[in-house]
């Protein structure tokens, strides 16, 4: 955390929205990406994004500089994303809409896949479906641990800090998540023994 960020946090703690806006600009890309990979579609992610930063502003006076601000924000974002998913059980990894019913990818999914370079030539629709299914079948914490590790590259201790569980539990969740995903996706492996 550099001195400018520390100064902004202190000002935000005294109620400066301008300072908080500057902090949002520093971290919101990463936070939005994280939220989207947990809640699964961009429109819900936008709502959780707003909730996250509103909650963060309300609580910033309790930030004690014991962790990085990004980790602290990540923790709020993850908790709200998990709560959101609990409320939206019927929704799947990607947004459900008419396109999906027609068998087409939802806009967010299309963007996800297109930008990730995963076109149908490389990864057929069946595999896409299996990846989604696999991620959705994971218990919530395993899923969050896997998403934070695989898609966002966080260290084990950072994940433990964010979702407030022991590092050993994070490792165990990661192991179990990879085992389950292997089972779901093993037919697509080059090594499928």
């Amino acid at each position, binding site marked *: 955390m550099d001195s400018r960020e520390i100064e902004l946090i202190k*000002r935000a703690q*005294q*109620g*400066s*929205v*301008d300072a*908080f*806006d500057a902090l*949002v*600009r520093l971290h*919101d*890309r990463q936070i*939005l*990406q994280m939220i*989207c*990979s947990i809640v699964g579609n*961009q429109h819900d*992610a*936008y709502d959780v*994004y*707003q909730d996250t*930063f*509103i909650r963060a*502003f309300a609580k910033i006076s309790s930030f004690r500089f014991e962790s990085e601000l990004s980790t602290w924000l990540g923790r709020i974002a993850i908790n709200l994303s998990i709560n959101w998913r609990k409320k939206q059980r019927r929704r799947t990894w990607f947004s459900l809409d008419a396109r999906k019913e027609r068998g087409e990818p939802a806009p*967010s999914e299309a*963007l*996800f*896949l297109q*930008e*990730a*370079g*995963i076109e149908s030539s490389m*990864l057929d629709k069946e*595999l896409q479906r299996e*990846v989604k299914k696999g991620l959705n079948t994971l218990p919530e914490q395993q899923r969050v641990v896997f998403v934070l*590790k*695989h*898609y*966002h*590259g966080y*260290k*084990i201790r950072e994940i433990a800090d964010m979702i407030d569980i022991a590092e050993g539990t994070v*490792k*165990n969740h*990661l*192991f179990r998540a*990879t085992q389950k*995903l*292997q089972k779901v*996706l*093993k037919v*697509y*492996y*080059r*090594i499928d*023994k």
Partner: protein
Amino acid sequence: MNICKQTQEKLALFVYGDLSGAEQDTVRAHLESCPDCSREVERLQALQEVLPPQPPLPADEATLIQLRNSLSQKLRQGQQSEQRGFANFWELLQPAPALRIGMAALLFLVGFFFGRQGPTETPVANDLNKDAMEALFTANNLVQSGGSAINPLLASVERIKYNPDTGEMEIFYTTVNDIHLKGDMKNPAVQQMLREAILEEENLAVRLHAVKAVKSMAVEQNKMAPEILDALTYVLKKEENPGVRLKVVQALKASLPDESVKVMLVKILLDDPNPALRIEALSALMENEISVDDVNLFRKVARQDSNNYIRNRAHKMLDEYDNQSIPGSGRTDESVNE
């Protein structure tokens, strides 16, 4: 397949590179002697390949700005309603009119009693006249610059230092409101702020407005401050948004015939992948006095540019030049600047 229990949780971390150096070495050594764990690592690596990489940001720049603006608005509204709630709280404490005189009398008596107990203190607030009070809250004297006026309102007092020996008081405070800078185009503060906006501002619309303002300034003054020119040069190299880049070229066009600007426009005309920018650069160069080097440049463009419109314009311009030129005026230009 039997993965070794003591290693199983470390294998994924090994694949993700999230083990310490010593642990990584231990696992690597184990893998050499354990085919099951080794195969598991291969499977994990295959899983990594089969899953999509990190998802992209699910919002483009414009959406992100919209989200930020909406958030900021909500926070400000929340803060205002909180303050209103606080004011309402005090209103609630106001006694009924019939009790007010009694309350006032009681407060007077309490004040009188305690006032007699302690030393008499200097009434600081009463010493401040209206102008001094205003200066305290607007800090005009600290931030005025040339013809500009910046009036930041007080947000909070950070720290107060009092030196009892000298009687000097130091107050550190922050400002919270949007700052309004007013001044003409020649004002150094205005120029500095425009430069900052061009270089640093994340909001695309603000960057665009800053470049437009710079363009107006260049049109009016027919020149450009070197700092602004530097900023525009930087933007041309780094800016990704074609709208902003186009405005930059238009701003540069207004500050011709500055030689460094001309060099930049020539570079755009020859190298920029965006035809709109090349067209703007071409028209800028064509509107100015045309040198022999320019004619050669246009010939090159007329031959080589991938865009039909640009080639045609260059041809047309060359035809006009040929028609207007006086025989023997020295158009032995083919060899120059090819």
